[in-house]
């Protein structure tokens, strides 16, 4: 027999911890929301806001200030200079707004500015990205749509799969679609739409007593809000790769939640305890080994990506690092207590119905 981190007879009272967990989650979410409000919304990268980004590699160390000084003459609108990646890579990232200036002009101005301002230092423009404001806005809408459809499809899948209630799932999908269409018709902004979609989804899950879906969705919204909040607190920018990371976090968080839920369902069918709270606790304990091992290996490789993957992938890896950590926590401390919160009788009835069906 190999090693064991979690002893087979471990009985941690996870459900008893739910009040404290609730406080921790609430504080993290409020901190993130507070930071978003203070900053006037997420800080968009050029993918969403439009603009020009230029990555320059120097052949020796140069300070941000030196580069800033060298480019003073160029008078680029809204120029931001920051160091990029590892310190020994000698890379600098330059940003400027694009509406009034073309990308080739920016390239010329930066080249000539650096040539005259930093004599004797070789440099190479490694990457230049320009996104027009219209394309940026389109990408933003698309990204929000992607998150919305992900939540919707997953809610339907869980309700159908776990509770054999495809019909209720279909009602929820219809209700959500109708609600969003209505909000769109009265010309609501995309931010309102996201929150609208979330509230409608949660409300419908509640009303239709789709408890598994409710637990899973609240957990994944929890994970996204915390990841976005921490990103905002750290002053990181949101771009397309961060959306990819968020969707991956959705997938991962659900993966984790579903494995716990699967065991709860199995144990409910096996009637291993009369109390739902007890059943949930036993189920979490039984799957705890797996939860820790998988999260551990995933965090290992994501940490390797974070440390060694290079500047371009750095924030993406950071989002995954936060998301995988929070996702593991939420499947134990958020999803399961919510499942408990909706009464054992209903779930057991459903299970019998499902069995009979």
């Amino acid at each position, binding site marked *: *027999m*190999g090693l064991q981190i979690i002893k*087979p007879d471990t009985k941690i009272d996870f459900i008893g911890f739910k009040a404290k967990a609730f406080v921790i989650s609430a504080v993290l979410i409020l901190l993130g929301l507070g930071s978003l409000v203070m900053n006037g919304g997420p800080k968009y990268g050029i993918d969403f806001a439009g603009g020009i980004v230029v990555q320059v*590699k120097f052949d020796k160390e140069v300070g941000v200030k030196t580069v800033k000084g060298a480019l003073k003459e160029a008078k680029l609108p809204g120029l931001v200079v920051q160091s990029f990646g590892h310190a020994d890579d000698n890379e600098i990232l330059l940003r400027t707004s694009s509406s009034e200036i073309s*990308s*080739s002009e920016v*390239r010329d101005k930066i080249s000539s500015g650096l040539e005259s301002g930093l004599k004797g230092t070789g440099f*190479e*423009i*490694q*990457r*230049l*990205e*320009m996104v*027009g404001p*219209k*394309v940026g806005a*389109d*990408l933003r809408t698309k990204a929000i*749509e*992607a998150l919305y*459809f*992900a939540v919707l*499809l*997953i809610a339907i*899948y869980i309700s159908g799969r776990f509770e054999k209630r495809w019909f209720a799932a279909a009602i929820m999908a219809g209700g959500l679609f109708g609600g969003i269409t209505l909000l769109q018709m009265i010309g609501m902004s995309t931010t309102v739409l996201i929150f609208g979609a979330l509230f409608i989804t949660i409300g419908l899950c509640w009303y239709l007593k789709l408890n598994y879906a409710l637990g899973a969705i609240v957990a994944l919204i929890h994970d996204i809000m915390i990841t976005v909040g921490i990103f905002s607190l750290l002053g990181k920018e949101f771009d*397309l*790769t961060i959306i*990819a990371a968020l*969707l*991956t976090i959705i*997938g*991962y968080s*659900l*993966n984790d939640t*579903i*494995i716990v839920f*699967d065991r709860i369902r199995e144990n409910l069918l096996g009637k291993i305890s009369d109390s739902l709270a007890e059943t949930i606790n036993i189920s979490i304990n039984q*799957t705890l*080994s*797996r939860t820790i*091992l*998988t999260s*551990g*290996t*995933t*965090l*290992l*490789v*994501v940490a*390797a*990506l974070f*440390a*060694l*993957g*290079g500047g371009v*992938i750095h924030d*993406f*890896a950071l989002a*995954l690092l936060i998301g995988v950590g929070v996702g593991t926590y939420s499947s134990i401390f958020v999803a399961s207590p919510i499942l408990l919160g909706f009464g054992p009788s209903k779930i057991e009835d459903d299970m019998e119905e499902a069995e009979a069906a």
Partner: protein
Amino acid sequence: MNGSLRWKIVLTLLVVVFGVAYLLPSLPAVQNSGMAHFLPDDKISLGLDLKGGIHLTLGVDMDKAMDNNLSRMGDDLKAVAREEGIIVLKPKVLKGERVEAILLKQDQQEKLEKLVKENFGNLTILSTAVKPDGKVTYVFAPTPEYKKYLTKLTMDQAIKTIRNRIDQFGVAEPDIRKQQGNRIQVQLPGMQDPERAIKIIGKTAHLEFKLVDEAADLEKAQKGIVAPGREVTVIMHRLPDGSYIEKPIVLKKDAMLTGEYITDAQTRFDQFNQPYVTLNFNSRGARIFERVTGENIKKRMAIVLDGKVYSAPTIQDKIAGGRASITGSYTTEEAHDLAIVLRAGSLPAPVKILEQRTVGPSLGQESIDKGVAAAVVGSALVLVFMLVYYGFAGFVADIVLVLNVVLILAGLAAFGATLTLPGIAGIILTIGMAVDANVIIFERIREELRRGLTAKAAIIEGYSRATLTILDANITTVIAAVILYQFGTGPVRGFAVTLTLGILTSMFTAIFVTRILFDLYTSKRAADAPLNI
């Protein structure tokens, strides 16, 4: 060994052979060896972020295309009406996709309306207004079907023209495709000079030959005062340092000849080794050119490209044979690029650069190196961990983990998917998550063993109970990946593809292949022998 196990082994070996065969051509060491002849041609294609190159999103100015088209339809209407004896003043394009034409005589209204109905089915009459002097103002608008048709036609033509230009420019494996919202996406791997690429792709290349109005007063013209039928534009003078200065020039508005009759354009050098561009017209163009030059000897003819005059030579004699040349003291490169755009034809409407991403090849190589380093370190950590934690079973998991990575890379090559930087991240993430299915199964087997089952029974029970859980858990990740693919662009799509591929291969290896290894292991041992897990 029973029959079903044998078949499973055969199937797995086939998959392994397929995986290795499709992976090998992507390795540089194999590419240069004689082995390459026996392997598939498919290689993992690297995205622009790894290979270096230019990614452009172009927006086609559909309003302009519609205006151009309406203006042409207006001219046609005037011409056709005249053949029928109906006099229509020169039609004017109004804002909001409308064209206005004035009918001189009110009593011809019926005739004109009949003519429009019969010959101009694409136009509908929006309004008619009779003026006190008996003139009738007509406002026409294109039908919705025609608008749709024109949009499609314009896009197709723009893509064709851009493709022609890029092909002549000589970029390997360019990717040009239509996108929503009248956009065109252009990817040029390996191309490192974005300015030149943009100049070539973005040039409308609308070539016109117009007569110069020598009598016009330039000072007045600069203030915008010109006689009817004349227009002010600029003539480009190239200075010795390579820059241009623009001087005003007045032209007769109607073009004598346009670039649509060009069959070929070439760069040549004169006796001073100055490059110039020669043009060949088709037979119709040649006839027009011969007539126009014959009628205008000793007058200056301006060669207008995209509204700017590049040269305005004096016509010495009637030019027959359909050949002309554009001199304008260009650099060789400029002359070459001008010949390309003229040969490839003009864009049906101006295009605007909406998005541009340029990645240098050194950054790409650096990204690959760092990605590979992260993957190697990450996988090594996972491999060691699994071996220490699960013993023999960990060894089994390690084997399939390696197989998993081989299959992902082979899958990318076989399906012609593009590996991007986020794609590498997707593979690395999959390595971490791939052991999940194994962990679920192994933990189950451990539970069953603790309940007192024999190794064989515990394996059977563990696999059967874990399989559904694994499917459930992975389907949700696949849903997220499919949505990413649907909504994402470029690199994000690459991530979605590798993630999906990774989930599929990891389910195959973790559920199917490990089971074979376990069955092989236990089949040779006594039924009550303990299992190292």
